């Protein structure tokens, strides 16, 4: 069963019934799902959650759809791994990696999409669509395939080849748009207005956004029903960042964990860091920028959840950090070399931001810190192909031995 109450405007608090609707008619603010937390508190316990499936669906009491008819390809309950090697490199004794690159389509996007695809079927849609910087479209295409829905995905045509391949294999209509993500997004918004499609991150956005809260629930449960001291989260629209915090707060509101005192840190690449700029300038709104970054998955210059991300930073005494473009690849390499996890560019941004926060003393050495690795490195291989260094040898023992002898550093 679900505990959903209504849709409410995050800006002016106007209330709406549960429909495929994402914009407040009064002020254009985004809509958000509300729940009957009193009933959740009465009916849901740590034990009832622990008895659920090992996926995001163990938390369906906090989602807008129940698990019975879930379009489920096995999303969530991803590993929370203690990062001893990276931690010792950075002087952090309690560093953890939430490795969401091992989801079915190799990014955290499966969380919002499994929820949205399920709700879209319930609403009776037969087309699942999205605008995407890459990861989302793979997830939409996969869940659409599982649900037996048609899928159509819109993306900037300069997108990494591997992200295009990782979506096309599921058979969606692939629309490459001559423009940047913000332009693709605008096209999608106008299309969503005129077509009867479930655009997962447009007209279905309130349902979609809820899926990301499961990252907050999982880390709390995996830490033994506790909240961490610090979270470092990559940001494009800022939605994931605000939803991890919402997840922790909801768990505390219904008594599953103590009140969190987590500091929420937001990470963006220098070439697209509108939220960081607004944070530094102490503004309440986020002036848009034209993205120019290696981290294409974070290349949203006009982040809709920007104002809410700024609120979360201030509510949690967190901060926003921009990673210089030239340090993104170094971050990817550092994580791979120390922890055996190959992440995409967004993960490189997170690891480099972590390094900076640790060096500046913004994170204490014994504090429990979690970095969110949200996508798999194979999707952005282009940025690291230059790092392939070969030792060439003939196929015989002696040829190899000769080589070793001549290679002092081997």
């Amino acid at each position: 069963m679900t505990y959903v109450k209504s849709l409410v405007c995050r800006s002016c608090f106007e209330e709406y019934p549960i429909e495929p609707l994402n914009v407040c008619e009064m002020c254009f603010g985004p809509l958000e799902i509300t729940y009957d937390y009193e009933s959740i508190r009465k009916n849901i316990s740590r034990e009832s959650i622990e008895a659920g499936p090992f996926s995001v669906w163990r938390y369906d009491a906090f989602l807008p759809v129940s698990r019975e008819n879930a379009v489920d390809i096995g999303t969530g309950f991803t590993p929370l791994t203690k990062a001893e090697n990276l931690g010792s490199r950075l002087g952090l004794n309690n560093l953890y990696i939430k490795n969401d690159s091992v989801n079915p389509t190799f990014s955290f996007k499966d969380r919002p999409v499994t929820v949205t695809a399920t709700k879209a079927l319930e609403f009776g849609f037969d087309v699942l669509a999205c605008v995407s910087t890459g990861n989302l479209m793979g997830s939409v295409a996969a869940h659409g395939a599982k649900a037996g829905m048609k899928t159509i995905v819109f993306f900037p045509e300069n997108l990494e080849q591997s992200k295009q391949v990782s979506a096309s294999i599921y058979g969606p209509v692939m629309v490459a748009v001559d423009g940047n993500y913000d332009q693709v997004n605008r096209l999608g918004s106008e299309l969503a207005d005129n077509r009867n499609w479930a655009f997962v991150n447009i007209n279905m956005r309130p349902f979609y956004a809820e899926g990301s809260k499961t990252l907050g629930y999982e880390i709390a449960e995996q830490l033994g029903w506790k909240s961490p001291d610090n979270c470092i989260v990559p940001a494009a629209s800022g939605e994931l960042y605000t939803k991890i915090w919402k997840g922790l707060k909801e768990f505390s509101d219904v008594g599953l964990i103590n009140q969190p005192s987590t500091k929420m840190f937001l990470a963006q690449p220098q070439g697209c860091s509108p939220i960081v700029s607004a944070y530094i300038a102490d503004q309440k709104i986020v002036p848009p920028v034209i993205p120019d970054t290696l981290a294409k998955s974070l290349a949203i210059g006009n982040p809709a959840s920007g104002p809410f991300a700024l609120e979360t930073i201030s509510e949690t005494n967190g901060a926003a950090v921009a990673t210089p473009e030239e340090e993104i690849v170094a971050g990817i390499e550092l994580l791979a070399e120390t922890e055996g996890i190959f992440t995409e560019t967004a993960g490189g941004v997170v690891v480099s931001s972590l390094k900076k926060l640790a060096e500046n003393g913004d994170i204490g050495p014994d504090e429990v810190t979690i970095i969110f690795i949200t996508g798999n490195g194979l999707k952005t291989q282009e940025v690291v192909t230059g790092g392939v260094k070969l030792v060439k040898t003939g196929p015989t023992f002696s040829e190899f031995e000769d080589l070793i002898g001549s290679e002092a550093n081997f």
Partner: protein
Amino acid sequence: MSVLIRIPTPLRRLSNGQEKVEVSSGSLESVIDSLEQSFPGIKGRLCDDQGALRTFVNIYIDGEDVRFLEGINTQVKDGSEISIVPAVAGGMN
């Protein structure tokens, strides 16, 4: 001597269901004022009490975000097309 405004779904109740509306050219502010004369209440949805564009309202003139132009003071030329688009986003990662 007019400009075309595309009306998004959330405002169509105010525009009597019309998806496209033509008004006289001028500054964006005057265009919004003309819209208000035809469809009372619509300005309050787009602008706050001080007359500034609301945070979650994106306006594009011939595809250009007015925040990269001169905002509400941007001159809208004859024959231009204005889109009013809610600030939704997504695709993070």
